[in-house]
């Protein structure tokens, strides 16, 4: 028996016992060995779901790749030849070296992965860093992180551990369908309800999670902000709000100039005043600077309503008013009756919801869905306002739960080490201490969380990760789409081109706006990613625009994904159970889960560490053979390509992934993130270890709370219990964004905006969500899982919309808009609201007719305001603030395929490819 987990983007990391007989995995079962954390709170056990329990089936599934393959004929033509590893690596190495010599290392592009675990990701990130290549930030591709939470709190990662759910009095399942997407955790919702909590499902469709709820609130797709703001209005009108919490935690007491709409800053009222010192109006002493080092206001008693005249540094006067007054005025537009007309939720239900939440411990379970709306940020900001008014964060059973990252310090430290061992770790940590000390000297009020952000920012400045918006704009064909203003928000006062060039010109993306227009991509790596299935904008966009520019497309995967089908070379990767790995650490779980090598990799498949170490060696050898020893990259760093093989393994210290993982674990233990004494053997014995700390880097620290061995972890306790400020511009939970672009767009406060007509003015809003039976496309080769449902792509639509179009359940239907089209089987159900259709995430394009999947109708629009930078907390961080492509509420229509004029036989639609 060995421990196994699956390192999937559900991010659960459920420990499984994997049983092997005669070298073959026989079956797996849920571990159920997690100790209870806190008395009276259910434990995490058993963890797992049907997807994890069927993992071993895929070890020998039909779509498994087990030999290096090279394309024969046209890309996507489906003909391959088996080649040796040496041939494959030599061909890839030569392509990389050619690209570097002719166009520089930024012509080598890697897509960051969200699947496969840390040991699948670290190797190619390491090679990219050594080459000076470009790595496309996964957040800018998949858009899982809640942008509105970042706008409000200065961080994406606000998630408590999942057992905190049990402590809530009211649970709002908002944009989340945990019965599908969080199966291992769902019991906490049921247990909370058994304890007496009220469960409210807020969704357009009557989803599987709504079935077990106390109240179902059916909201029209994309109008959640109107609903949330209407609830906020009721809270204020009925005086159900938490004034002390609002005053302490938020920017609502801060003063705004009525002439410019900007915050009143110290530099306004005194010469040489600080740009980032803000003010409030004290009921006794009048105008006062708001403290920046603490949320606590001490003697100050801010007035939350009124208008005052303030003398400016130049002697003139200006009128100011608190943000709270602006919020009240803004909410005037969201009276329940008015909002009901927008969001489709009856006014009485809105009022009921407000009264249900007021005075209770309320938690919003948001999932990864909200941010995928074009105006998802506004929805989330509105939800956060609801929580602020009801005092609902930083206390057990409260807060908002979207995707949160975590920290494994050893992983971060590894990239800074030049040799193995504890002494090198201490050297690196001592260096970081010096940097931290310097940061504290510059800003004595900076919290550990802010320091963590600064450290990550420093690392980013010299790293290879870049937000993909620039790559997509210049090289992948998105520019024309993003400039279609009829598909974007009507409040844009300029074209997208103008905004983007303005943002670059102002230096808001300095150092990461790459590759630029003049750096054409030549070699493209997809390692465990699947852009042709996933890319908002569709497979056609990439095949027509990006693919022809690429000399070499390399896919590393264990299965023949849609992207692999269109690659030049496919390298077979070992699957979980065949190699050592750990799941991405996230704060939901607060555990590091381990997956052991229960059996040998199938065929010729290899681990990513092995593959990229071998590729690095091959690059060095072939560079030396062509007399190429070093080059200078775009950041003016000299890259010694002839020794890249040795550098990859640090001179031989890290020849296999067990060495690497052991180092990460030991270093994490040394840094205090894992229990002292933890090693790979600890993981091998226990399968999963609870973190003991958040680490010293931003992703973990963003939760802003202490980790205690015997307590459920509740996010934001530092803010509420210790009054430590937020890492925002105003250092408070910030609802008012006074950036000129936000003011221009009318989004300085959370408001409702109709979803733009992405795809054209069509009657049905296409939404999506993770399916119950797969994580992305990973499970699409798993026959037992496919057998649990219809096993093919489905268009789920309402009875009335189906009837209006003459569609009956089981019909093949064509879904189309101005961007593209696809066909799939109709599933007609009363649980989907009229006007909405759902295509669950994960089906491969080649499961659709003509290999055209649901992303063909998604234009992949990005919101122009997310190009803002250098505004307090609105600045790029890896897996953080950046433009992200929307794919919810895309407008389409549906017709029976038989009536469509373009029905063609199955098979790939031909695309030009070199």
């Amino acid at each position, binding site marked *: 028996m060995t421990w196994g987990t699956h390192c999937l983007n559900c991010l659960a990391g459920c420990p499984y016992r994997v049983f092997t007989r005669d070298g073959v995995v026989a079956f797996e079962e849920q571990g159920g060995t997690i100790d209870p954390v806190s008395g009276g709170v259910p434990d995490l056990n058993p963890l797992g779901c049907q997807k994890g329990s069927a993992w071993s089936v895929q070890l020998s599934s039909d779509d498994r790749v087990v030999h290096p393959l090279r394309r024969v004929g046209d890309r996507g033509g489906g003909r391959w030849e088996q080649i040796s590893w040496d041939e494959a690596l030599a061909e890839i190495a030569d392509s990389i070296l050619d690209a570097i010599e002719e166009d520089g290392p930024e012509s080598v592009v890697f897509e960051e992965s969200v699947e496969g675990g840390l040991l699948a990701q670290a190797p190619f990130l390491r090679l990219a860093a050594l080459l000076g290549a470009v790595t496309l930030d996964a957040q800018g591709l998949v858009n899982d992180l809640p942008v509105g939470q970042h706008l409000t709190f200065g961080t994406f990662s606000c998630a408590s551990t999942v057992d905190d759910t049990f402590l809530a009095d009211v649970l709002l399942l908002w944009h989340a369908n945990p019965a599908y997407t969080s199966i291992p955790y769902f019991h906490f919702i049921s247990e909370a309800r058994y304890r007496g909590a009220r469960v409210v499902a807020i969704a357009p469709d009557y989803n599987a999670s709504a079935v077990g709820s106390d109240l179902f609130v059916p909201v029209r797709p994309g109008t959640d902000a109107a609903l949330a703001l209407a609830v906020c209005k009721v809270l204020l009108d009925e005086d159900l709000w938490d004034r002390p919490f609002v005053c302490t935690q938020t920017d609502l007491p801060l003063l705004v100039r009525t002439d410019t709409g900007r915050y009143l800053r110290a530099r306004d009222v005194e010469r040489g005043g600080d740009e980032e010192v803000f003010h409030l109006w004290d009921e006794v002493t009048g105008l006062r600077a708001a403290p920046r080092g603490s949320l606590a206001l001490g003697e100050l008693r801010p007035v939350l309503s009124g208008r005052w005249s303030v003398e400016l540094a130049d002697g003139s006067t200006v009128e100011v008013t608190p943000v709270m007054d602006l919020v009240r005025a803004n909410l005037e537009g969201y009276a329940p009756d008015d909002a009901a007309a927008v969001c489709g939720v009856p006014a009485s239900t809105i009022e009921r919801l407000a009264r249900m939440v007021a005075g209770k411990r309320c938690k919003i379970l948001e999932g990864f869905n909200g941010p995928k709306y074009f105006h998802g940020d506004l929805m989330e900001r509105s939800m956060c306002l609801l929580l602020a008014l009801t005092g609902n964060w930083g206390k057990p059973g409260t807060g908002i739960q979207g995707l949160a990252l975590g920290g494994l310090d050893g992983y971060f430290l590894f990239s800074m080490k030049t*040799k*193995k*061992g*504890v*002494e090198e*770790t*201490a050297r690196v*940590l*001592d260096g970081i201490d010096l940097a931290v000390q310097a940061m504290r000297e510059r800003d004595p009020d900076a919290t550990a969380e802010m320091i963590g952000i600064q450290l990550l920012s420093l690392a980013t400045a010299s790293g290879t990760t870049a937000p993909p918006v620039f790559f997509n704009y210049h090289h992948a064909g998105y520019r024309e789409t993003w400039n279609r203003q009829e598909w974007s928000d009507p409040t844009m006062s300029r074209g997208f081109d103008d905004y983007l060039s303005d943002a670059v010109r102002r230096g808001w993306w300095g150092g990461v706006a790459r590759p630029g227009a003049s750096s054409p991509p030549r070699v493209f790596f997809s390692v465990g990613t699947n852009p042709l299935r996933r890319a908002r904008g569709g497979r056609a966009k990439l095949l027509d625009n990006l693919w022809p520019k690429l000399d070499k497309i390399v896919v590393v995967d264990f299965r023949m994904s849609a992207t692999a089908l269109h690659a030049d070379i496919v390298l077979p990767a070992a699957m979980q159970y065949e190699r050592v790995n750990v799941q991405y650490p996230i704060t939901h779980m607060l555990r590091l889960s381990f997956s052991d090598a229960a059996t040998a990799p199938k065929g010729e498949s290899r681990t990513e560490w092995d593959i990229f170490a071998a590729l690095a060696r091959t690059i060095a050898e072939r560079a030396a053979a062509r007399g190429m020893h070093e080059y200078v990259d775009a950041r003016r760093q000299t890259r010694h390509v002839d020794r890249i093989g040795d550098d990859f393994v640090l001179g031989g*210290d890290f020849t296999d992934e067990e*060495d690497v993982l*052991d*180092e990460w674990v*030991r270093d994490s233990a*040394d840094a205090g993130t894992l229990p*002292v*004494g933890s*090693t*790979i*053997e600890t993981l*091998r014995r226990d399968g999963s270890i609870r973190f003991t700390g958040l680490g010293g880097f931003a992703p973990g620290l963003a939760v802003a709370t202490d980790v205690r061995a015997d307590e459920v972890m509740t996010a934001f306790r530092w803010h509420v219990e210790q009054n430590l400020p937020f890492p925002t511009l105003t250092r408070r939970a910030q609802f008012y964004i006074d950036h000129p672009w936000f003011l221009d767009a009318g989004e300085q406060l959370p408001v409702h905006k109709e979803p733009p007509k992405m795809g054209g003015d069509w009657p049905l809003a296409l939404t999506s969500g993770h399916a119950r039976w797969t994580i992305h496309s990973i499970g699409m080769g798993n026959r037992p899982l496919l057998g649990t449902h219809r096993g093919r792509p489905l268009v789920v639509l309402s009875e009335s919309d189906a009837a209006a179009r003459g569609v009956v359940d089981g019909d093949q239907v064509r879904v189309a808009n101005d961007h593209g089209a696809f066909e799939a089987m109709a599933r007609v159900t009363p649980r989907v609201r009229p006007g909405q259709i759902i295509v669950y995430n994960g089906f491969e394009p080649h499961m659709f007719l003509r290999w055209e999947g649901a992303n063909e109708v998604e234009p992949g629009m990005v919101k122009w305001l997310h190009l803002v930078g250098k505004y307090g907390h609105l600045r790029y961080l890896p897996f953080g603030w950046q433009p992200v492509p929307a794919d919810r509420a895309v407008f389409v229509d549906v017709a029976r395929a038989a009536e469509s004029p373009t029905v063609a036989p199955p098979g790939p639609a031909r695309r030009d490819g070199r």
Partner: protein
Amino acid sequence: MFTYSLQGLELTAEPTGVLEVEENETTARSAVYQVLGAFFASGDATSFEKSREGIWTKELTEAALLLPFALAGGEVLLAAGMSEGEYAAEFDHVFGGGRLLAGTGEAREAEVASVRRDYEYFGLAASEEAPHPPDHLATELDFLQYLCFKEAASSSPRLATSFRRAQRDFLSGHVLGRAAEVVAAARAAGAAQPFAGMAGLLGAFVADDHGYVAGLLGG
């Protein structure tokens, strides 16, 4: 001044930092591990000679001068009339030809991998020329000797703490159990001196040292 002396381990890189430190409580612990490691390395002629001349006892006494706790066990003398051949035979008898001093059974491979990783993380590797496997008690005591020295020699409080934690974890993870087996084996075999005495001294010392280090680390 004190420095370390490795027998079954070697540095993986050129030594860094200071190579000698003023004697203190920590170097005393290192010194005791050094003596114990050498004793449990073999029952050869040199060991016999040191036993006959009382050198083991002398070395232990000197090493323990600055120990922060008393070294349990007194003078360890050679059994009366024991010859060099009998000495070697008794070593083999008590410790199963040295087999009892290293791991056995199905878990052996994992144990060896585990201690190897420990050595490598702290800048050492099991010497190719060493007469003992990496999981031999003598090698493990050698490692503890080194960890104590590095703690004493470290100018970085962070690093000193890392070395100290490593001592505690290595003791609890590997050496306490092995020492208990050695004590039990000596008792079961009715071991003659000095083996009975040294086994008892080993068991008491590693237990006391573990308690001491754990106390310094706060539990």
